[in-house]
């Protein structure tokens, strides 16, 4: 399955300018590597997430994820570690989108910048069931230099079952992560 540019950039319901900047937002086909375990359309064993920017607020990101029977921790519940995968992935989209948009606002090349996960805290507030759609939403909570703090929630049946608070670090997009790790401080 291949998603073309129209999925995100060309979606007529996606706002084309953000806030008061009046600048066209940076568009790109896919914000992650196409083999990403969370969202990579070219990863047949991945979760095949399709993150979407919220059409109303224009800045938060949403995705629906349904865990299958092979993604259990305790029987009937999503594995508590595995739940970090879609939350981290969606939060990363929000962080990357944020640093790209700031690059545009600053007159820099949005393709030259990206954000990597530094640290995160997961709280499992209630049991998260497998086999039903879970609504995930990620929102940038704070920016501090190269650091972007993102809060992500998992909602099932109007109840928040898990939260994910993460700090991402902006780095040059041509950085080979194997050479230099991010430093979230």
């Amino acid at each position, binding site marked *: 399955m291949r998603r073309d540019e129209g999925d995100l950039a060309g979606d007529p319901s996606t706002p084309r300018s953000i806030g008061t900047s009046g600048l066209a937002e940076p568009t790109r086909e896919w914000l992650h590597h196409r083999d990403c375990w969370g969202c990579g359309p070219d990863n047949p064993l991945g979760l095949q997430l399709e993150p979407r920017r919220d059409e109303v607020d224009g800045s938060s990101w949403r995705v629906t994820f349904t865990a299958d029977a092979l993604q259990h921790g305790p029987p009937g519940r999503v594995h508590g570690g595995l739940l970090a995968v879609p939350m*981290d992935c969606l939060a990363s989209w929000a962080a990357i989108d944020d640093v790209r948009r700031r690059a545009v606002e600053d007159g820099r090349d949005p393709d030259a910048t990206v954000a*990597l996960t530094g640290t995160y805290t997961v709280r499992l507030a209630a049991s998260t069931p497998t086999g039903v759609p879970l609504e995930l939403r990620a929102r940038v909570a704070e920016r501090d230099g190269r650091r972007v703090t993102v809060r992500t929630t998992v909602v099932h049946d109007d109840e928040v079952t898990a939260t994910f608070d993460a700090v991402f670090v902006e780095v040059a997009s041509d950085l080979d992560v194997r050479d230099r790790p991010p430093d979230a401080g």
Partner: protein
Amino acid sequence: MTAAVLQHRDWWPDNPCFGCGPRNPHGLRLESTIDDDGVTHATWIAEEHHQGPPGAVNGGAVAVPMDCHGAWTASAAYRARAEAAGSSLDVLAVTGAYSVRLVAPTPIGQPLSLRGEVTQLDGRRCLVTVHTTADGLVTATFEGVFFEVPVPRAAGDR
């Protein structure tokens, strides 16, 4: 002490867990052991499909084995306590919360060592740290809060 696998293979062969279920075809099938010092150990190898940034394990995926190994580290502490008290119940651990720090990229395709330790056992609550190490370098740290869930021993039909 024994090098027996902590995952209750004896009475729970059908454990569906993504992290440690022995028959989960998509899972990591972790096996955790505990040494004489009470430190737990496991190894895994991340595959191509666990990728995040090119060449590195997905930042969320790093949590999967650390959470699972952490749960069995807590479970071992609960079990030892239950046995010392002469309890006829066995125990499992469920995750309450955890924090992960990615201190270096975790590589794909080479053995990754997990090392777990209980830092506090307080009633039902157990605090556990887990480190992921690749080729001698710590790549990620995990601090988890787990809670005790007693189960009947030999609950073979779970």
